[in-house]
């Protein structure tokens, strides 16, 4: 959330230039608002799709998408890079130029520093932007107060790699540098967190790497949950069939503290576990900007929303989609964020045109790789019922327990990635 020097100078420049006076309190307005404007904060799985679909459905609404980076790297499939299957992150990286040009979306590369729900103004590192409706798709931030010792410096020693990018690269480099016979420690927080099957796919991919390159090594998984939180029987079988002796899975082991100097994690003050590589997946909450705007619910972590509009129940005019929202039965996955963005876009367009709302209908489809050639999936359809998002009864589910579809699903997963990233970038 800090301003770098260049952004700061731009901010000062804009403030002084526009008013012709020394900068006072608020930065200058970046772009004057016309008749109808939606501002989207975040250019990931949710934000890009919300921006695009609003423009697809109503060209009279101006859409401004604010994102701090000039590109986005997908978390889905980043475990394949960590496991040595993908040679770089380029297949997971999108830019915004085609999306912006194809749909007339105004993309602003800036950091959002504050939201004023009463004035309907977003403050960014480059100036302020007014909105009629705001869509927040900020993803997650970490509850560092629940993981003692895990500060910015510790993250460079014990990566989380739970936001794809430099952290992902760091974790892979550490695995590559580790001696054969070393121990990797992976800690999993209590649910809910971003990507429920993610830690277990990561375990599989790290084990895949170790089996191929460092066969005397092992991975110890310290899971705060009482059991594998998603696709449990499938991971259990996949690990038994492929990684016996490599994966040491320990349920109900909640890591509460780390010591980056000693390379140890501490389980509820009782037990130290030391690793040569330590991957800490910290407990999570909605992205900081959503917390700062007062959008989180009684749990202090996630943003309660109306299931049809994804409008915050805490602040009118602000919609929260993706991992940051509490979307009932819909999991915190990339595909959910994509689906939620379209539901939100449809009903924002209705709201801004004084039209009747439409009940939500959503999907989640997500794949997890067990080996380089086998994947398992979970899929479900969601509907609104009594003001809540529920899975449609007698539908959905996970892959067959005997792995009979696993090779086929690994092939379909590749097309899943191509399609969803193409949706976001064109």
């Amino acid at each position, binding site marked *: 959330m800090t301003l770098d020097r260049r952004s700061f100078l731009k901010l000062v420049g804009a403030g002084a230039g526009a008013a012709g006076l020394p900068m006072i309190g608020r930065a200058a307005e970046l772009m004057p608002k016309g008749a109808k404007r939606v501002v989207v904060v975040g250019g990931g799985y949710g934000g890009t799709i919300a921006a695009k679909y609003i423009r697809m459905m109503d060209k009279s609404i101006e859409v401004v998408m604010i994102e701090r980076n000039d590109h986005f790297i997908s978390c889905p499939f980043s475990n394949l890079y960590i496991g040595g299957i993908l040679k770089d992150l380029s297949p997971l990286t999108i830019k915004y130029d085609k999306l912006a040009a194809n749909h007339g979306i105004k993309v602003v590369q800036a950091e959002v520093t504050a939201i004023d729900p009463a004035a309907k103004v977003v403050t960014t590192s480059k100036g302020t932007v007014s909105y009629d409706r705001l869509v927040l798709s900020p993803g997650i931030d970490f509850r560092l107060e629940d993981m003692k010792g895990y500060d910015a410096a510790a993250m460079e020693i014990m990566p989380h790699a739970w936001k794809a990018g430099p952290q992902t690269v760091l974790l892979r480099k550490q695995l590559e540098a580790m001696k054969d016979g070393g121990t990797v420690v992976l800690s999993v927080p209590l649910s809910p967190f971003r990507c429920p099957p993610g830690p277990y796919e990561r375990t599989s991919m790290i084990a895949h790497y170790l089996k191929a390159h460092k066969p005397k090594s092992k991975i110890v998984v310290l899971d705060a949950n009482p059991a594998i939180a998603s696709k449990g029987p499938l991971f259990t079988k996949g690990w038994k069939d492929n990684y016996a002796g490599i994966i040491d899975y320990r349920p109900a082991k909640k890591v509460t503290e780390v010591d980056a100097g000693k390379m140890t994690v501490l389980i509820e003050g009782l037990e130290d576990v030391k690793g040569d590589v330590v991957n800490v997946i910290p407990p999570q909450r909605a992205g900081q900007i959503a917390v700062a705007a007062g959008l989180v619910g009684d749990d202090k972590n996630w943003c309660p929303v109306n299931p049809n509009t994804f409008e915050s129940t805490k602040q009118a005019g602000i919609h929260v989609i993706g991992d940051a929202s509490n979307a009932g039965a819909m999991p915190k996955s990339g595909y959910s964020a994509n689906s939620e963005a379209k539901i939100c876009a*449809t009903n924002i367009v209705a709201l801004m045109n004084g039209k009747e709302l439409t009940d939500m209908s959503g999907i989640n489809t997500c794949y997890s790789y067990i080996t380089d050639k086998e994947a398992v999936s979970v899929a479900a359809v969601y509907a609104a019922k009594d003001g809540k998002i529920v899975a449609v009864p007698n539908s959905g589910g996970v892959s067959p327990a005997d792995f009979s579809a696993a090779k086929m699903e690994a092939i379909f997963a590749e097309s899943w990635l191509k*399609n969803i990233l193409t949706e976001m970038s064109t």
Partner: protein
Amino acid sequence: MMMKWKGWALATGVLAISALAQAAPPSAAMLSNACAGCHGTNGGSAGPTMPSLASQSKEAIEVAMKKFKSGERASTVMGRLAKGYSDGEIKAIAEFFSKQKLHVTAQAVDAGKVKKGASLQESNCGRCHIEDGKEGKDDTPVMASQWLPYMQMQMADYLSGKRKMPEKMKEKVDPMSKEDLEALLHFYASVK
């Protein structure tokens, strides 16, 4: 008066939280947009093993979804997803995608195979796969510009018996060689 009040309330956001009861059932677009994460925006797929649905025959989509739902047609995720929709919703989804513009797939095809496939199409398949596969008779699927890897996977399923071939198709396919079938698929993939 009622409509006016509601319109005002929606426009001003007063009803935003309490409007739940008044929401209309999911529209065709609401239902179908959720599919686009895997099948591409408006059903134009960018993934070689996921079929484009844009401009597909509505009967073909409806029949496919109902067979996925009943389990008659084997699948990985489609059976699990199809069970989440009523027959009316399936019909709405099928109509939505059938109305979208044909998605011209950028893919490499073999010119020699395309030529051979064109003549096979005319003499064998054209009665049901009408207009070079741009249209389909009854529930015959549109083949034009479909992804080659997807069609190859489906043909493999037909030949292995995993997917049941319609009688008329079987009569035509049985005498053809693997090379003939491959040429046909290259032809369909090339149609724009």
